[in-house]
């Protein structure tokens, strides 16, 4: 890690309009929006594993998709190696994508069932006009071997249905790595894989990071995995980052009440539940009607009048540790 920022996100927002029924459209003019990502700023340093963690609906996957420009942002800026990529159009975007790749959660849905493994993995090379024919084949074999699918010749002619979930996820990795990207968004890459195989995929990711000088944006709901894999972690709640810091800071000194509750809820592989789950009131509010003030206040046991009125900013409490909570400021 040399401290250079490979990705810088500033005030990123993504609002999805809510579809209305015919009558509603006639009777009301206001449009509702799902505020999936609501003003998020962070940087990812070259060579690190930066994790976005949070529960379903917190906007972590949307953020990942925005960064590789699979969906356009509502507002905000995304800098890749200090170049704004939010405005890139077709051709430029295609060229940039070679260096920015994404691995999806579901290896059963992310591979074309009618394409042989060799075709799937080699396809990006054709799209980008990098290699054809025997050269393509050589590159495919090389990358398959690299992700641990040996002997690679055997896998070339198989279809996805002939592979296990773990093998498919390796294929998905091979496909994204074949373009030699610098930055990879890994969106819950192990959550659909059997427990005994998860570690192999995670270790493979970490090995490849060193070998190929990769940087990862890792997206997960599983904080235990986040702790194992990350250098830095950002915890998201309802479209916003509520706490961000080094792995050590987040796990030994969690400051935001939401992070604390999240950590207390994680099962630990030991007999007898020692810790008590911190009580959180109610459930996550709707991303359409975000509560005024701190968006976490309806569930927070430390909520004050101030929390109900104005939203706390994400501020640095100790070096590199950012928290969006008035309790932490005091």
């Amino acid at each position: 890690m040399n401290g250079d920022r490979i990705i810088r996100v500033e005030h990123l927002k993504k609002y999805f309009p809510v579809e209305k029924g015919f009558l509603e459209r006639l009777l009301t003019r206001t449009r509702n929006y799902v505020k999936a990502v609501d003003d998020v700023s962070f940087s990812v340093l070259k060579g690190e594993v930066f994790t976005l963690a949070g529960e379903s609906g917190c906007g972590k996957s949307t953020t990942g998709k925005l960064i590789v420009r699979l969906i356009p942002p509502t507002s905000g800026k995304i800098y890749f190696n200090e170049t704004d990529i939010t405005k890139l159009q077709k051709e430029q975007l295609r060229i940039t994508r070679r260096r920015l790749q994404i691995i999806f959660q579901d290896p059963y849905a992310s591979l074309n069932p009618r394409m042989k493994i060799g075709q799937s993995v080699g396809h990006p090379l054709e799209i980008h006009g990098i290699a054809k024919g025997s050269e393509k084949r050589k590159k495919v074999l090389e990358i398959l071997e690299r992700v641990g699918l040996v002997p690679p010749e055997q896998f070339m002619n198989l279809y996805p249905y002939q592979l296990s979930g773990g093998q498919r996820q390796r294929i998905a990795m091979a496909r994204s790595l074949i373009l030699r990207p610098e930055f990879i968004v890994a969106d819950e890459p192990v959550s659909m894989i059997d427990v005994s195989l998860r570690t192999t995929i995670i270790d493979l990711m970490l090995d490849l990071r060193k070998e190929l000088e990769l940087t990862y944006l890792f997206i997960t709901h599983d904080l235990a995995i986040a702790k194992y894999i990350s250098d830095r972690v950002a915890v998201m709640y309802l479209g916003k980052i509520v706490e961000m810091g080094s792995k050590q800071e987040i796990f030994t000194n969690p400051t935001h009440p939401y992070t604390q509750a999240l950590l207390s809820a994680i099962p630990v592989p030991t007999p007898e539940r020692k810790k008590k789950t911190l009580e959180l009131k109610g459930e996550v509010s709707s991303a359409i009607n975000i509560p005024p003030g701190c968006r976490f206040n309806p569930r927070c046991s430390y909520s004050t009048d101030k929390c109900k009125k104005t939203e706390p900013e994400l501020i640095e409490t100790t070096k590199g540790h950012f928290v969006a909570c008035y309790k932490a400021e005091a």
Partner: protein
Amino acid sequence: MIQKPQHLLTVEGLTAEYCAQRGRIIAVEDVSFSLDKGETLGVVGESGSGKSTLGLSLIHLVPYPGRIVKGTILLEGQNVLKLGKEKTRDLRGRRISYVFQDPMTSLNPVERIKDHFVELIRTHEPKVTKADAITRARKLFKDVGIQPERIDDYPHQLSGGMRQRVMIALALALDPSIVIADEPTTALDVIVQAKILDLLKSLQNRYGMALMLITHDLSIVLERSDKIIVMYAGRIVEQAPSSTLYTHTQHPYSQGLLKSIPNIELEEQKLTAIGGSPPDLLHPPIGCQFWPRCQYIMEICKIKEPPLFKTGIDHLVRCHLYAGETSG
């Protein structure tokens, strides 16, 4: 038949298979265990280990083309597999109830929540009036922590966590002696998961039912069960009280599982993966099912499948490494 009235449930030599087009798959092979009142049994295994088929067998509900080949399931001394149609229906829901993994698809989307309760209660207890059934549903809603007014809602109006609470309330509606929860929290977020598991525990303390918790998550079963069955390729590979399983983990597969799951409470942790992948059940290996992935492999492992060896009080292990111990 020897009856063992001291246990609430006794399963002996249960074997279940699926006759697929491509061949026969033995999903559950020679499984035996017992369950007592108020006890929590954790069943842990990966996909394809047979844990769900085991759960479904207990209510005689293995889906076609599956069937139970042999074995006995004694519930309070009565063989579940020998019951007639009527009695089997009475078994499901009233004596053993089931909480399925996916609360989104287990409720009827075009019926109000209260109608689910009315239908369930009146099917089993025809004399109960509709009003009484609704009263009971309201009380159950209080038990599982939802406002009673919500029984008028449709399933889509509830969140995932609330739907799973509804499923638990339905499972408790007929006061069963055993609740089988098959991955009850897999579709839910961690905070909701912890709440649901706490809820199951408190309801168990209140009503004294036995709980069979089926999951792929070893952390959950270690934290929440009294005893644990580890399944691999349809077999029990290790069975022990949860504290024993943690302190004296014996089967190489259980050891591997423990080493491969991250523990958030540890400062630095080096995870080691179990190499290889679970066997193809259509072409299972000869001998021990785990040998292709085992680091302690011996010649005998490839020839003969080990029986369950008894290595301690209530501790059974299916591994040749423990062959010196008495065969259980």
